[in-house]
């Protein structure tokens, strides 16, 4: 939020952002973004949005989905609460994508739980008509771990931001990764503190001028994918708010993955860090600056004109049109290789190489919740269901009277 919610008069409906009202258009599918990339100061709009500031429908009443026959629709997953993000915020596109994905996953609504921390992104659970908890700053992984481990039958999603999970919650994010709790984490990375009105975050670039760093920030930024890989993540992926189609596909894969599905979403904060990711997300530069990679496919970008090949331990951009190199020279990505994931994850705000989007790493290993359950079962099988009376009278006892 660009301002403290508490300052807002009760009952006043916030102006609606475009993305919330009419998010049904497939992302990037032939639709031109209304704004040229890098168009500095102009308020930004998610792709597919034509008129600024003109919501067609109040939030909470989105267009009905493909249902109609009793099957759940997108509307079934939207709560009756007003969505209060700033108009034009990238969060709307993520909410719309998740609401659209949910009916397709086939999980009954009552079995879905959203847990969040604190920050703009963490208001998310209030807008989902599922079970949910908006908790405290940085601690969502702990609450999500508690509920999933004690109730493995539930489908748990965790919503967080770059400040929430990489700064105040840094300890928990690495531990949920190593435990591999079976849930999905959507980390909204906007490289800024939004809710507290614009301080630099742990992912902000060095030299960032903000309210708390008038002479530029000094802290070296985290690379979230590299960080979670270092914490032994079993699934790590990156996507962006302005490509909902890609986002939906990645979220689906994270959901279908058995383990902690970590998804970093580049999310534009149009109030405090507008255009931070425009070079990757806007049409004019997207094809050159971003690479959408897939398992088993060669690393090709720029509409097939360029590729990445492995030269020793480094990736190198090659021109596929000059006659020297062909698609066969490009690295065929293997998402099960930690070595490749590590190399690709380190392609990060690189001057010459495109920023990668896709599933960096996927490793099948037992989940925490399933192992805890198994251990309990094993003890019950070995020792039988415990008897309270026997336990109380355990050990050396004696009788008086």
């Amino acid at each position, binding site marked *: 939020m660009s301002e403290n919610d508490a300052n807002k008069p009760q009952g006043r409906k916030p102006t609606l952002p475009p993305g919330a009202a009419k998010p049904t258009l497939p992302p990037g599918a032939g639709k031109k973004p209304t704004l040229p990339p890098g168009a500095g100061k102009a308020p930004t709009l998610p792709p597919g949005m034509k008129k600024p500031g003109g919501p067609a429908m109040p939030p909470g009443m989105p267009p009905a989905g493909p249902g109609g026959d009793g099957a759940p629709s997108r509307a079934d997953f939207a709560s009756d609460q007003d969505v209060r993000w700033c108009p034009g915020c990238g969060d709307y596109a993520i909410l719309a994508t998740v609401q659209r994905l949910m009916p397709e996953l086939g999980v009954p609504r009552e079995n879905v*739980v959203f847990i969040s921390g604190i920050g703009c992104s963490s208001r998310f659970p209030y807008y989902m008509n599922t079970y949910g908890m908006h*908790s405290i700053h940085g*601690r969502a992984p702990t*609450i999500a*771990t508690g509920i999933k481990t004690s109730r493995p039958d539930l489908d748990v999603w965790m919503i967080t931001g770059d400040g929430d999970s990489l700064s105040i919650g840094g300890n928990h994010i690495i531990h949920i990764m190593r435990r591999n709790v079976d849930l999905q984490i959507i980390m909204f990375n906007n490289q800024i503190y939004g809710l507290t009105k614009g301080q630099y975050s742990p992912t902000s670039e060095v030299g960032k001028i903000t309210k708390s760093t008038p002479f530029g920030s000094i802290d070296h930024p985290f690379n979230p994918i590299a960080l979670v890989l270092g914490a032994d993540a079993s699934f790590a992926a990156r996507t962006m708010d302005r490509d909902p189609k890609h986002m939906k596909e990645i979220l689906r894969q994270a959901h279908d993955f058995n383990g902690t599905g970590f998804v970093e979403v580049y999310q534009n904060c149009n109030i405090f860090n507008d255009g931070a990711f425009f070079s990757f997300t806007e049409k004019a530069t997207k094809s050159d600056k971003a690479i959408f990679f897939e398992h088993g496919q060669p690393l090709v970008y720029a509409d097939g004109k360029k590729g990445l090949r492995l030269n020793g331990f480094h990736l190198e951009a090659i021109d596929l049109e000059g006659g020297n190199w062909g698609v066969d020279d490009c690295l065929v990505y293997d998402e099960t290789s930690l070595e490749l994931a590590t190399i690709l994850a380190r392609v990060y705000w690189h001057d010459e190489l495109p920023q990668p989007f896709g599933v960096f790493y996927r490793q099948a290993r037992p989940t925490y919740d399933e192992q805890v359950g198994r251990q309990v079962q094993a003890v019950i099988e070995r*020792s039988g269901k415990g008897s309270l009376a026997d336990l109380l009278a355990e050990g050396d006892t004696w009788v008086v009277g």
Partner: protein
Amino acid sequence: MGSKTVETLPEATVLFAGDSGDGMQLTGTQFTLATAYAMNDLATLPDFPAEIRAPVGTRYGVSGFQLHFGSVDIRTPGDDVDLLIAMNPAALVVNLDRVRPGGTILVNSNSFEAKDLNLANLDSNPLEDGSLDKYRVIQVELTRLTRETLKDSDLNQKQIDRSKNMFALGLSLWLYSRPVEPAEQWIRSKFAKKPEIRDANLELLKKGYHFGETTEMFVTRYEVTPATLPPGRYRAVQGVQAMAMGFVAAADKSGIPITYGSYPITPASDILHALSRYKNHGIMTIQAEDEIAAIGMAIGASFGGCLGITGTSGPGVALKGEAMGLAHITELPLVIVNVQRGGPSTGLPTKTEQSDLMQAYYGRNGDAPMPIIAASTPGDCFEVAYEACRIAVKYMTPVVLLSDGYLANGSEPWLIPDPDSLADFEVQYATEPNVEVDGEKVFHGYVRDPQTLARPWAKPGTPGLEHRIGGLEKKDGTGNVSYDAHNHELMIRLRAEKVKRVQQDMAPLEIFGDEDAELLIVGWGSTRGAIEAGVTRARNAGLKVASVHLRWVCPLPADLGKVLSGFSKFLVPELNNGQLVRILRDEFLLPFEAMNKIQGRPFGPSEIARKIEDMLG
């Protein structure tokens, strides 16, 4: 039996002290077991250094185990030691002030060489300089006798020297006419796979016992006849064990699984150790990455319809404060155990104190009261644990359970409870929508039970009850986010009133002693034994005095005001710098006098009795 005279004592206090590596805790535990077999009432106080393996022979490396036992009602580990067994000079000097004048000191005379005295920072040898004149000193060459006993064994010198505690144990068992069989049994099962160690220990135990009989050093041997405890089956129980079993009982009687989240911390870790063994009793434990994660996991479990519990000590509670506020505003059941230790900061991690009461009362941002229950004896930890869970669920609130280092590690004979005698523990989850809006049945998460003011507990997985909770202020009834000024005030008052209503579930207060006395002692927590024993002594000396002990410290019991109105003088003994006393003054505006001890040690009955004499004298 030889030609020794046998003197019968009503009670006795023995203190074993030595290096951390001398096995004093083990010796004390085995002596306790034998005492339980002799059917005495008892109370114990282990006392160990904060360092795991402190340098040998130093004062700060001294580990002790105190045991008070008798044929009479035993309420504390004893304030005056009758027999101190000191394995080295450091153990002697550190504990000397606890021995009563005329008491007996048994030392290992082989460990009073110049280097030993040096390690203990002593300029002269206390065995020779007259500083022990007011005690009866018995010098036993424990090291030499041990070596002699085991001269034919295959153990090396170090192993042999480390076993001398068994000789000391045998000797003390003889001195107080305790059975040796329990210790023998224990040695046999403990070292079943190491026959040479087993045989060495058995041999030493026996030699120690016979040494008592044959040596000329002892003319008298003592016996303490069985105590008249209420009839039933007993076991010796430590506070931590009792508490863990209380949680198991809660899971059993309520039928809801318990999730215990905890981060290792002295002295609370033993609860985690105990509960982690009870996986087939509906208990799941998670060792979290930190204190905050531990409570977060417990809150997550409670949101999922299980009962979340987190256990720690004061510094851990400091870290959990924000999450406790979340549990308060989301109105989820949760139990937060604080096994108090000496503070502030890291303070005295292995010593006992009652200095986190204010923290439990006020240690959160905003107005966030929660019920606080305090255990009073090691065995009471069982009932208090059960009650904390029951109230947390019944009122949908976090509950703070205060124990302390003394209760956690101390032990006493425990009348094994009958599971059927425990209070009913019924849990009702919400199953359907609870309000009608525009002709449609919907679920509102903050509609309250008129009696308890508890909100409904709707488990995820229940169709139609999907709802969101969180740390932002909630609208009364619907539970939606609300910034409305009047709603905020209403919700603050409602949550406080709900906590106050826990009074409905409290048993009436009981007055101990003379109801027509002038002076009333008000206590809470682990001081109960010392207070009531002190009151008894003062009354035996002809003084009129009474005491009342609080199990629930927040809210204060509804009948406390009425009880107080019958007295004119008030004393509040606490192992802190004055905490309950301030809360009472604030609530009742009566002349409460504080009595504070902040030494990492419990009160002794004589301290309480002396204070009573001062006030009434």
